[in-house]
């Protein structure tokens, strides 16, 4: 027998489950991933290559299995797996099978993912930030965030984070330092006392989010094109000792090169200012000062707002990013070059720690109000939990309403008549200037022209 597990081979878990090897999902850097059948259906087993199956790794897997993360966005190790026929101490771990409709980032970059658009991509980004927030909130660092372990479903923006086999507490040493393009500069430089932590994860997360939206590495501009072959020193310069953001406002030395790196130039142009500012923070001051890195909650809340401000061009129908909030700078459609007409917006106001906070939803023809718009704390955005949705009037052209998709009535104020009216479940509030909807619990929505 060679190093591959043959079909029909039986592996076991400490709990006594029998796992029958069916076929292979592929061979990777650390191990092979097999499809196994169990009496509860198909599962996946990551089986470590001999050299990777160290006692330290085994201890980590046991720790991870003992303290699971209850978040469906992680393909978390479910059990240690061993081979009863093997005496060399090989092992692996059991996890759920990644469904076929989840794709990885390289496939996105190669344009192989059908059906993805800016709305879905924004949800992917949001989910990514929110998932790492859940992990980090438990004091654990992932340690090797890179484009190989994020998978997403283009149909709904759901994500799956794989290779969670090092995500133990921050202060444990796993021997994993990360993938160079994603390593925080202090790790890349091997600064004394630098080790993988939540703060270094935040750098990797920013790189991942930039790559997701811009399809390019934030530090790989002109300087990268000078690297001609494998060159440790050059890589260390690029990501460690002299990292320069492509769009650093104070340092133009590493701009993307037109004709060679056009994708990132085009994508940066259409990126809304609110996101540009965060990326600039992450890759200028955040490079040198870990405490200045953009936090997961900031990413998450920003993507949530960006999602609500995506608008279809009235001329060609392509989606464009508009800066969230009132009176955004005008946007020229990236596709047809005409000015994008802005629909009115719904301003949602609610209490938060003794102050009123507000956010906006652009009232496109299929705009929706989601549960997360109304709640103070959100542990997981769920775009299937719709509270209200824009609907066209069945007979009167140009008239739109917001349909109450909840089971409780809303109340609508009319300033002109000083009257109050109920909007029962299933009925619509007419969208017009001056409209004020009370959703309950102190949450209100105001109709704004600009």
């Amino acid at each position, binding site marked *: 027998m060679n190093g591959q597990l043959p079909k029909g081979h039986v592996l076991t878990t400490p709990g006594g489950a029998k796992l029958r090897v069916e076929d292979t999902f592929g061979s990777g850097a650390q191990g092979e991933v097999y499809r196994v059948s169990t009496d509860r259906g198909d599962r996946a087993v990551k089986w470590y290559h001999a050299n990777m199956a160290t006692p330290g790794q085994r201890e980590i897997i046991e720790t991870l299995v003992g303290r699971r993360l209850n978040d469906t966005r992680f393909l978390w190790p479910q059990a240690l797996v061993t081979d009863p026929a093997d005496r060399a101490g090989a092992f692996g771990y059991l996890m759920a099978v990644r469904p076929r409709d989840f794709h990885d980032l390289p496939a996105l970059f190669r344009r192989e993912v059908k059906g993805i658009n800016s709305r879905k991509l924004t949800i992917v980004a949001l989910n990514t930030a929110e998932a790492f927030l859940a992990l980090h909130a438990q004091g654990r660092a992932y340690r090797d965030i890179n484009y190989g372990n994020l998978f997403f479903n283009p149909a709904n923006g759901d994500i799956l984070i794989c290779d969670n086999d090092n995500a133990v507490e921050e202060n444990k040493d796993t021997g994993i330092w990360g993938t160079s393009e994603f390593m925080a500069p202090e790790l890349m430089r091997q600064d004394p006392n630098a080790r993988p932590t939540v703060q270094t994860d935040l750098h990797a997360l920013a790189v991942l989010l930039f790559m997701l939206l811009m399809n390019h590495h934030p530090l790989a501009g002109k300087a990268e094109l000078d690297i001609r072959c494998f060159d440790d020193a050059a890589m260390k310069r690029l990501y460690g000792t002299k990292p320069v953001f492509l769009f650093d406002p104070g340092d133009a030395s590493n701009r993307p090169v037109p004709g060679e790196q056009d994708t990132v130039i*085009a*994508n940066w142009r259409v990126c809304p200012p609110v996101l540009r500012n965060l990326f600039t923070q992450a890759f200028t001051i955040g490079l040198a000062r870990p405490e200045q890195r953009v936090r997961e909650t900031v990413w998450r809340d920003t993507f949530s707002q960006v999602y609500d401000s995506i608008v279809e061009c009235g001329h060609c129908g392509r989606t464009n990013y508009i800066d969230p909030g009132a009176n955004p700078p005008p946007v020229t459609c990236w*596709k047809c070059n005409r000015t994008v007409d802005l629909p009115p917006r719904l301003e949602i106001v609610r209490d938060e720690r003794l102050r009123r906070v507000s956010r906006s939803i652009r009232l496109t023809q299929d705009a929706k109000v989601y549960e997360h718009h109304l709640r103070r704390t959100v542990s997981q955005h769920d775009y299937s939990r719709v509270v209200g949705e824009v609907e066209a009037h069945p007979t009167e052209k140009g008239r739109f309403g917001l349909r109450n998709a909840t089971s409780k009535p809303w109340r609508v104020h009319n300033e002109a008549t000083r009257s109050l009216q109920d909007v029962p479940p299933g009925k619509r509030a007419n969208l017009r200037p001056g409209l004020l909807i009370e959703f309950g619990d102190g949450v209100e929505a105001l109709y704004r022209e600009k």
Partner: protein
Amino acid sequence: MSSIEADEEMPGGPMANRPVHFFWLLDCSGSMMGNKISELNFAIREALPEMQSAAKSNPAAKLMVRALTFNTGASWHDKQAIDVASYSWKDVHADGVTDMGAAFHLVARELGNLTMPQRALRPVLALISDGGPTDDYRAGLRSIEATPWGQRAVRIAIAIGNDADRSMLKEFLNNPELEPLLVHNAGQLASAIRWASTMAVKAASNAAPNTNSPLSNTGQQWQAPPTTDDEDVW
């Protein structure tokens, strides 16, 4: 020579030539009645030997031919695709209106359903018409474009006489650099069909990567799309 063969001497599974599917899309509307339809029948019969020899000179490709006709509605003239080597022409007859859109839908369905392996060569669509479409041909064209093989098909258009809707035929060609072939008499029709059938076979079986895509030689420049958008850009 059988198209699929397993070989004692050769490692691997059965080998096969790469198929080229050639579709005649023939206008058989009432306006074709009389001379024109007999000239068309004659021209295709005439072109067959040359098509056969073009196919023979490229043994790596296997040329499969099938005709459909459109007048009031559209229908397959041949029940199935036939190897050109054993293809024989059965005369078409003229009657009715010019439902070209129906023809496009029919061929699109075939292109979409064909269990054409991805290793096949690009199909050829040869459209011959003497008039203007009487139905929604644009929807038909879109249905062709919606299939992977439709997007990649080599397209040829022959306009018979000045009444043919040349701007529509140009739309079918979907290439600003190409014009439909305009023919006025039987001799021109025969030579256009001969040219079409042999050139198209060559074009389809000469490897031309991504001819309908960024690497196109049609003069279209590739433009980096903002990647954060709709499926049509991806």
